[in-house]
């Protein structure tokens, strides 16, 4: 696994952030990142040889893994928990962000489509390839997700204004 350790060291911050976006919380993000990276590392030489871009490959694998199999069993945590801020990660820093709250309520695939679209800036075709679905599915999932967000945000804002 020559080079894999270095890859992990360099890519881990970005992958954790990406995992946070996909899963909606730090703990599941760490779980997802660890699970996927360990699989990638176990076939590291092949990944490097066949994909050309291990970071992109890992991100796609994370999106796919997140959508296809939601892990219920927590793994060891990769993220730091400083004693004097114990429980910090249990408090959602985005609790006051209505859009974030609504994103968390979306089905995993719809959320993944939005993350791939707005964070990775992938096209519909690229998202389809990453998730192993048709372009039509990507369009419909994105459409449903956006409609849900718009509708609930409208309700939320109306409620705030009432």
């Amino acid at each position, binding site marked *: *696994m020559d080079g894999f350790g270095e890859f992990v060291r360099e890519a881990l*911050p970005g992958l954790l952030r990406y995992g946070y976006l996909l899963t909606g919380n*730090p703990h599941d993000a760490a779980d997802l990142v660890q699970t996927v*990276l360990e699989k990638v590392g176990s076939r590291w030489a092949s990944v490097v040889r066949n994909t050309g871009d291990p970071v992109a490959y890992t991100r796609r694998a994370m999106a796919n893994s997140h959508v296809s199999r939601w892990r219920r069993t927590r793994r060891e945590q*990769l993220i*730091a928990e400083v004693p004097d801020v114990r429980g910090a990660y249990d408090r959602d820093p*985005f609790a006051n962000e209505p*859009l974030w709250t609504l994103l968390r309520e979306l089905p995993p695939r719809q959320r993944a489509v939005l993350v791939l679209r707005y964070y990775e800036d992938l096209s519909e075709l690229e998202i389809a390839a990453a998730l192993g679905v048709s372009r039509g599915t990507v369009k419909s999932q994105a459409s449903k997700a956006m409609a849900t967000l718009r509708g609930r*945000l409208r309700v939320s804002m109306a409620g705030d204004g009432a």
Partner: protein
Amino acid sequence: MNIDDELRRLFDDERLDLAIRPGAEQQIVAGARRIRRRRFATATACGIVALVVVGGGIALAGTGGQESLPPAVSTTDPVPTTSSAAPSTTAPTSTTRPPSTPTGTIEDAKIADTTAPESTATTPVYYFDVIDSWSYGPLELLMSGPDALDTGLLGAVVFADERCARYTATYGGDVVVSKRYGVVAIRVTRPVTAPEGIHIGSTVAEIKTTYPQAVEDRNGLHIGGAPVVTGFSIAGSKASYEEPWSDDALVDRIEIGTTKTDCANAF
């Protein structure tokens, strides 16, 4: 509210950056190793065959479980390849194992390597100081043949049949690759050290002190069991198979191998 813009703003929020626990990288690398080993262990669960390779090869014997040694890969400075194919002259050379089969000797590998085109290459060769139970530098047991070749450490082919090939190694030693299992043996004759300190030039007595569970075989001593063993090949030969190795006999090669292999003919 423009949701597109809001999503981009949200996804760029710095609060999404997470602090990483110290040691997280090592934890992931170790996990990847565990998966690779588990994959192989599953493949070999149907039966482990104790195997003593004929002809100066590694003794691969299933003698019980071995706790995995910690990964240890330290590199030294690169050196030119022009003189790197041969094992280091600091290794004990007072006695060498006589060839016992026409195709199964390290001496053959040396000869082939010196005539290989790769020996005149100008790219640096990296030596590695430590060999653990699964890997030597970038070479790992069970890695595929193409992956092994990608390391740049494999030289000339000195044996090949329909199942296996044995390559000289540019660091000094050789590597056996199975089409079915991938790398099944890595042998090192240049100065190298096992994680517990046994090295080329250590004595049999030192091996027995370090590894009380070490088992003697016709080529030296070995430790571990399925799925991998580490062998310490001893210079010289014994008068008989039953005779124990002399306590002051010296290690002239350290080798790691899988107990599941179909490459007995390659040694």
